[in-house]
């Protein structure tokens, strides 16, 4: 009897498989990881549409530095996208006026460290003086 079990086991072979490393085609409308194209983002021009609609505060915009000569909105702004808080509702994508935010179907979000789930974008807002010099109009070069 034992021999028949062994024979059956050997005949069956290994049943476990390796993880399929192919990218699974997700169904239509699947919302995976949202990504931010920071070069199209207008956070440094006073836009906070995505931050306003974000329900779990996964998107946070805060001022981290102030320019001496400017004050107000001038200085350095930091837009953080925290995947550990994100619920992938997609509201930020509909709110974004420039299409900088978009949903992807990327589902492989697991990470070993909490910090790996945080994408920080630092925006340096030009000083008032730069604006007066027309530096912005000249694409950042002094007038």
């Amino acid at each position, binding site marked *: 009897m034992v021999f028949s079990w062994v024979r059956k086991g050997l005949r069956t072979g290994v*049943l*476990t*498989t*390796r*993880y399929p490393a192919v990218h*699974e085609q997700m169904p239509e409308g*699947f919302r995976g*990881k949202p990504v931010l194209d*920071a*070069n199209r*983002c207008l956070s*440094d021009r006073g836009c906070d549409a995505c931050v306003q609609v974000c*329900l*779990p505060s996964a998107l946070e915009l805060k001022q981290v530095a102030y320019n001496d000569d400017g004050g107000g909105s001038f200085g350095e702004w930091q837009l953080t996208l*925290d*995947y*550990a*808080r*994100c*619920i*992938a509702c997609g509201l930020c994508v509909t709110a974004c006026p420039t299409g900088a935010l978009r949903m992807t179907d*990327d*589902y*492989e*979000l*697991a*990470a*070993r*460290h*909490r*910090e*790996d*789930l*945080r*994408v*920080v*974008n*630092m*925006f*340096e807002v030009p000083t008032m003086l730069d604006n007066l010099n027309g530096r912005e109009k000249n*694409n*950042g*070069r002094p007038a």
Partner: protein
Amino acid sequence: MEDPLDEATREAAARLNERVQRLFGHSLHIRHVDAGSCNACESEIKLLLNPYYDVQRLGIFFTTSPRHADLLLVTGPVTRAMEDPLRQTYDAMPDPRLVVAVGACACSGGIFGASAFARAGVAEVLPVDVFIPGCPPSPLTLIHGLLLALGRAEQRVHGRVQRVREDRLLQMFSLGAGGTREKERG
């Protein structure tokens, strides 16, 4: 990202990790603890056992006793009431053991966390090996996270700090012209 560990510690950790993974082989037993979850994560975890996702083909099983488990799967932001039971479950598990935080709440506290009644995630209570975000994470995300904990999958998400203005300037002009402003600032 700045790594807080020095070279020797990192090397020792990598060696230990390798040994742990050899001990687990291709088999893993999971004990799941609901630490104040809304049950959305549970319904996704339940799907892992259906014929479509079928984690048992990967050698991953669920057990009912922490004494039989290699991995502690935690959902929810860890409420006051569940903090002690969670610690007791962890203490009852034999070494080596892994902890995986499942869902936005377990990773960061989510919408419930960091209040008078709940902690801001599992990492405040236990050392977490893998974070699986999502609200709830899809079964494929869960499988990826579990295999990441076993060293059988690669991490795809890497947090970063990027300076956007610099990038924009580099994009607008040639490299040299864009860098001058940043260099002035030091």
